[in-house]
């Protein structure tokens, strides 16, 4: 039996965006705080901290999940991906991110990281996801700026492009 005492820091190992993490944390530390404060990857946002808003959504072993409803210790041995993994090493936006930019699918951007992660997981699972499935995934997120319509539009265009149905014109200014 592994019993990890409350007031001590314990070793935790997992993979974050393809890189091995090997650090210490207290049992009560949330995955959101571990990623932001211990690692310093601040792309994952913290909104409501009780699982409602979706801002903190990360990918755990291929599935979108609430980082605020996950203890850091629970992802021991898991593969975790955050919004930082969506752009390439040179910082060029991925297909989904580019579509968000083109369609003005964000304004303040607070909810965006979580939405991108959820949609990225959807397209990885179902490349031919339709509008109903996209909207179903979006029910797990709150956006107070866009009214969702531009997000759906961007997601549909990204899905089309990811399937290879249209050629993408670079929009870097």
């Amino acid at each position, binding site marked *: 039996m592994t019993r990890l005492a*409350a007031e001590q820091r314990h070793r935790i190992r997992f993979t974050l965006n393809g890189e091995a993490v090997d650090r210490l944390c207290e049992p*009560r530390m*949330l995955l959101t*705080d571990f990623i932001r404060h211990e690692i310093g990857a601040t792309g994952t946002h913290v909104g409501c*901290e009780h699982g409602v808003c979706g801002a903190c959504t990360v990918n*755990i072993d291929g599935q*979108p999940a*609430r980082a605020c409803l996950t203890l850091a210790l629970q992802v*021991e041995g898991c593969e975790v991906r955050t919004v930082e993994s969506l752009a390439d090493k040179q910082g060029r936006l991925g297909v989904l991110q580019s579509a968000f930019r083109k369609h003005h699918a964000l304004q303040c951007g607070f909810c965006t990281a979580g939405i991108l992660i959820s949609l990225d997981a959807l397209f990885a699972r179902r490349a031919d996801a339709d509008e109903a499935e996209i909207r179903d995934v979006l029910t*797990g997120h709150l956006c107070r700026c866009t009214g969702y319509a531009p997000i759906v539009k961007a997601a549909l265009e990204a899905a089309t492009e990811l399937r290879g149905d249209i050629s993408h014109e670079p929009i870097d200014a």
Partner: protein
Amino acid sequence: MKPAAFDYVRAESLDETLDVLRNAGGDARIIAGGQSLMPMLNLRLARPRILVDIMRLKELRRIEPRQDRIAVGAAVRQAELLQWPSLDRELPLLSLTLPWSGHVQTRSRGTICGSIAHADPSAEIPLALLALGGEIVLRSASKRRRVAACDFFLGVMATDRNDDELIEAVEFRVSNGRRCGFREVARRHGDFAIVACAAVTTDRGVRLAVGGVADRPVAREFETLEGSALDDALNAFAWDLDARDDLHATARYRRDLVRMIGRELIAEVTQ
């Protein structure tokens, strides 16, 4: 909002899990997917001294047919049951209800048994278990016992489970040709239900279960399935649920929904 401090036990066997529960005297809580318990910890509505993580126990991660039932182990996630290939055939009611339980981002981690243990009166999984006439299998260091769903839920987030017991599995009765239906009204798909109804045909008529109105899911059997007699019976059911006004809806609106959705669902499953 951060949880208060607790010891974290990564359980490696069922026996040691049950030992921890026995010795903690109510100060230990099981964590599986954490989608109900973590909000309680973050809001400090729950402050256990010990948290026992059971997700690495393979023996709890099974979906298995047992005679006329399907047993779902304590570590089976909601998304896993939703993707179980036989779900449409064996438990069509769950094919209908699970997509309403939280969002894809919470079903990916939340477990079936966790939702039963949490016993939120508006939750869909306890409602489906009650509608199907299921049982909860409880296990402590000294014994195993079974409780029918209709006796398990005692009130808002209160159940018949003792502090030293783990919900080892829940058993749903397979559909066996019985017809079923489900309908829910909520502010946003995936949010807690204002009213959720599940209907299942039985030998004598239709069992209608309602969540989100009383302090627990409640089921009633209807034998007369048409006409004003059915309206009267549904009206009596709606009043007996003792609906209350709250932030989300008035008691009257809830009774209206029970009468209306109840009627629609009964028509749907008896067509």
